[in-house]
């Protein structure tokens, strides 16, 4: 298999139990470079647990996650040292949280938020760090004069865009997103989604996006996984699954979307 065809992220029979309760069970899939996978399902269906397993935040009870490093080696996350995993997390990966307060440093300026990853990998030139931060703020449509403001003074939509900039500054290949549009009003959501779609295409990002909003999934993802009670009940191309759902539960999900 040539490098271009090799998967970037492989999940094999992933499962996580919280004591007697099931977090998720038996999840397997492959994700290729530049591919967007949406994980949908109701609250408590195990979407977020799955994301935490994939990103190495939690160790799975069963199964394993492998990731193809930049040198081309497919390595199991469990075999990586903690230092390597954390390095991966702040260079080759990104994580956009639902609550921007978890993903940002609220007390330092936007510029420092974007620059943190650069400084983390050894950038020591203030002028260049700032120039890169400005460039990224521009790409996520934040006015340059807001660079020295703390994200606490930002609106919800701006915070999410700042999170994007902070994550993308090291040109990651894989970004995890946990309900990135949650809690935003519809027009702000639309703008964020538009921006996201452009960035994913430009940067050839692979993303795993967890959402309960089917329209977000339709707009951003190529493939979709429907989860219920910790298990994947249906997978396929996004359009195919949403236009012609096979499982009863998916049919219910699709039909319960309000038509404006």
């Amino acid at each position, binding site marked *: 298999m040539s490098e271009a065809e090799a998967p970037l992220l492989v999940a094999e029979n992933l499962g996580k139990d919280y004591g007697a309760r099931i977090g998720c069970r038996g999840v397997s899939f492959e994700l290729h470079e530049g591919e967007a996978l949406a994980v949908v399902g109701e609250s408590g269906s195990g979407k977020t647990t799955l994301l935490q397993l994939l990103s190495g935040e939690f160790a799975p009870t069963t199964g394993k996650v492998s990731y193809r490093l930049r040198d081309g080696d497919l390595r199991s996350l469990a075999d990586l040292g903690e230092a390597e995993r954390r390095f991966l997390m702040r260079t080759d990966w990104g994580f956009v949280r639902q609550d921007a307060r978890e993903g940002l*440093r609220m007390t330092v300026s936007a510029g420092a938020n974007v620059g943190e990853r650069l400084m983390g990998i050894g950038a020591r*030139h*203030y002028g260049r760090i700032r120039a890169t931060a400005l460039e990224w703020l521009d790409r996520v449509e934040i006015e340059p004069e807001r660079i020295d403001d703390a994200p606490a003074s930002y609106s919800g939509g701006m915070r999410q865009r700042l999170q994007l900039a902070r994550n993308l500054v090291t040109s990651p290949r894989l970004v995890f997103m946990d309900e990135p549009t949650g809690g935003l009003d519809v027009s702000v959501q639309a703008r964020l989604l538009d921006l996201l779609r452009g960035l994913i295409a430009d940067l050839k990002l692979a993303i795993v996006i967890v959402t309960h909003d089917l329209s977000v999934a339709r707009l951003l993802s190529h493939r979709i996984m429907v989860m219920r009670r910790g298990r994947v009940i249906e997978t396929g191309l996004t359009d195919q699954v949403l236009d012609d759902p096979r499982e009863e539960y998916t049919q219910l999900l699709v039909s319960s979307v309000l038509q404006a």
Partner: protein
Amino acid sequence: MSESSAPRVAAAREAPSPSAPRAPGYNFAYLDEQTKRMIRRAILKAIAIPGYQTPFASREMPMPYGWGTGGVQVTAAVLGEDDVLKVIDQGSDDTTNAVSIRKFFERTAGVRTTTRTDEATIIQTRHRIPEAPLKEGQIIVFQVPIPEPLRFLEPRETETRKMHALEEYGLMHVKLYEDISRHGHIATTYAYPVRVDDRYLMDPSPTPKFDNPKMNHSPALQLFGAGREKRIYAVPPYTEVVSLDFEDHPFSADAPNEPCALCGARGVYLDEILLDDKGGRMFACSDTDFCESNRAATTEPRS
């Protein structure tokens, strides 16, 4: 270290204050021998891993936290009967904190004390490193309030420990970045973070950054004690200590331009002293011993 054969400073020109009789009822230097051994073990570990914050079982001391309980415990553990102790607070030998700690050890250890930097074998300090260069065989003990340089950016102790373990120090530069973006320059003037021996990030206690360069390759042993936070760390003699900075905003120690109004010394750290309520002020050496020696040297030359 108390009973060791560490090289001592050459015989003093003027005899320091004669050793006072030790007050009855106290073990030598207040702490019991087991406690001192425990602290010495922590100190040895700290010296072996320069800049690493070694935990120790800090004791209650007869003074409030923040007054130097960590420094006092370290001093008590390294103090020997023939040591000569100097205690300074902000460079001064005669402020409350310095006087009471000096008296404490006069009473409980009966050791000789001095105000002269070159006569002392152990110098306990809050904030300053004396202007007179330190020598081999001397020990300088710093009182540290917050040993963790990353604390204000990362409140979780578990996380900062991990960051030290994995050498993830980018966050410290975030702080310096913030300084520059807010003030146009690195506005941190004390507790200025340093990298020790190209490994551990260290808070040099609230010493002004003016003193940071003195830590680099110092011939004296530098010990840091944080009583409330229960940490001891150390910089062994002749160890590299580098102040963090950016390539385009390099570290500068910022020596004051003015000379000392009392002794005329230049390039030393000055205190601003208010003289009246009409805006009168003067700048004088913060290191009182250095200032007095200078003035004595100009009036009657000493050998």
